[in-house]
């Protein structure tokens, strides 16, 4: 068996997203995840020219309940239903599972969304209560007993290890945050549209040294969603289809989620499982879309997939290497560092715009294939293509 059977057989045909910038400026404790999701569904339907009654598959992420969303959105004929927790690691999984349902005829047109109201609900990400909440927990390795908390601190800790093995200064690391955040300046929906310099980066405060505030993704409200269908049906719709060329996942559960080898082995497995079925090589990738919960995720993947030699990722990306116009433009919308933290789902919307050729000032010339990956306890990735 191979995922080759499904390569380019399913496409994203409609997209929608909140105006993250406006929502961020106006937090509202009465804002619901469902109202944002309904806005996004309306946009996605208009985008591809489908009617609500065409939707027969529903994948929800981050709702207070798929039932409530179902009542409010008037979806009455859903054959495929899946409900995911708000978790970036599920972004690629959710899309691929829905693609399998579409490919196998369980759903003809499936709408997927992820909706969060972290900002309005003043949620914390300290891990004491995972993704908000108050539950006291000492973590799988008695984390809090020793004052260890937050996913970012785990990444920071891995960077001290990386530095000891390969070198790299904090200013070198800052290049990632600066280059990705500067893409936000070209995106009117981005929460942060300010440009940054390395000096700004080095002035930003430490959260868990060596990581600084600017290395962290945002805490915000918003929703991102998309409609998928078969490549065959996609031909009759308004937009140029963006095909799902492959998917791969490598579950590496452990009591703390930073991979001790910085995901080199996991990326090696993903690379094989992603590129072979898609019939592509690294050279065919014109842009990268990274689950940038923290800036470091970019470094791990550049080295893990082999875009940059092991231990040399920070040197490789200097001088605009991951900026628009650079070697491998990465997170062109500003990603989760500057556009919005939608657990990867906003990145999929940006990929779709790039591959349609509608990314305006951020458009990459002649882009054909984009690699998306997320590195957590569930490393996974997707390749998207605008060529059938």
């Amino acid at each position, binding site marked *: 068996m191979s995922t080759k059977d499904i390569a380019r057989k399913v496409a994203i045909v409609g997209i929608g997203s909140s105006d993250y910038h406006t929502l961020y400026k106006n937090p509202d404790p009465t804002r619901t995840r469902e109202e944002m999701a309904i806005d996004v569904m309306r946009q996605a339907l208009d985008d591809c020219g489908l009617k609500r009654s065409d939707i027969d598959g529903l994948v929800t992420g981050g709702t207070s309940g798929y039932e409530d969303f179902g009542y409010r959105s008037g979806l009455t004929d859903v054959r495929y239903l899946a409900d995911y927790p708000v978790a970036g690691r599920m972004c690629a999984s959710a899309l691929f599972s829905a693609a399998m349902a579409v490919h196998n005829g369980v759903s003809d047109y499936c709408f997927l969304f992820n909706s969060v109201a972290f900002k309005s609900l003043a949620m914390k990400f300290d891990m004491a209560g995972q993704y908000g909440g108050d539950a006291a927990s000492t973590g799988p390795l*008695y984390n809090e007993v020793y*004052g260890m908390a937050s996913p970012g601190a785990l990444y920071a800790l891995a960077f001290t290890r990386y530095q000891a093995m390969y070198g790299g200064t904090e200013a070198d690391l800052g290049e990632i945050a600066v280059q990705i955040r500067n893409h936000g300046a070209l995106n009117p929906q981005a929460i942060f549209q300010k440009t940054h310099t390395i000096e700004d980066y080095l002035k930003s405060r430490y959260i*868990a040294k060596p990581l600084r505030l600017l290395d962290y993704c945002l805490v915000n409200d918003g929703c991102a969603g998309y409609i998928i269908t078969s490549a065959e049906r996609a031909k009759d719709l308004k937009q140029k289809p963006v095909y799902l060329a492959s998917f791969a996942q490598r579950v590496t559960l452990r009591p*703390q989620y930073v991979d001790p080898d910085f995901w080199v082995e996991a990326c090696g497995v993903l690379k094989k499982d992603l590129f072979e079925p898609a019939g592509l090589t690294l050279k065919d990738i014109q842009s990268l879309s990274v689950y940038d919960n923290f800036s470091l995720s970019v470094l791990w993947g550049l080295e893990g997939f082999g875009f940059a030699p092991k231990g040399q990722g920070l040197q490789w990306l200097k001088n605009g290497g991951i900026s628009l116009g650079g070697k491998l433009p990465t997170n062109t919308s500003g990603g989760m560092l500057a556009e919005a933290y939608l657990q990867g789902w906003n990145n999929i919307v940006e990929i779709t715009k790039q591959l349609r050729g509608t990314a305006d000032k951020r458009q990459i010339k002649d882009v054909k294939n984009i690699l998306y990956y997320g590195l957590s306890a569930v490393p996974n990735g997707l390749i998207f293509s605008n060529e059938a």
Partner: protein
Amino acid sequence: MSYTKPLPTPNKEDAPFWQAAREGKFVLPNCPDCGNIWFPPYLYCPRCLSPKRVFKEASGRAEVWGFIEMAQPYVKSFAPELPYIVALVQLEEGPIMFTNLVGIKNDEVKVGLKLQVCFDPVKDDFTLIKFKRRE
């Protein structure tokens, strides 16, 4: 002053581990079937799933794998100590654990620093496992 930081609530999995710490011993679960040594002290061997674990005294030798200097008061009771070091250490037996370091200044902590276990009786009925520099 009473100890206000979070402490584990020992359960059937880890009570023998923390009881041994009170007695000044650093023990780890060992598998009599496959020889695996693991941490945290899960009930069953995560390698061969055997339920026959036995606790054996460990060497207490470890090295700093990585560390952070925490600058954010995520854990409120630690706030007076900011910025403080949390280290992830690799035990000579293989498993990793988070810990705080005793008698080592923040700017002296390095990856690879050699450590020896030590015991911090933070309450009458609770002793935490920590690590100090190995001489």
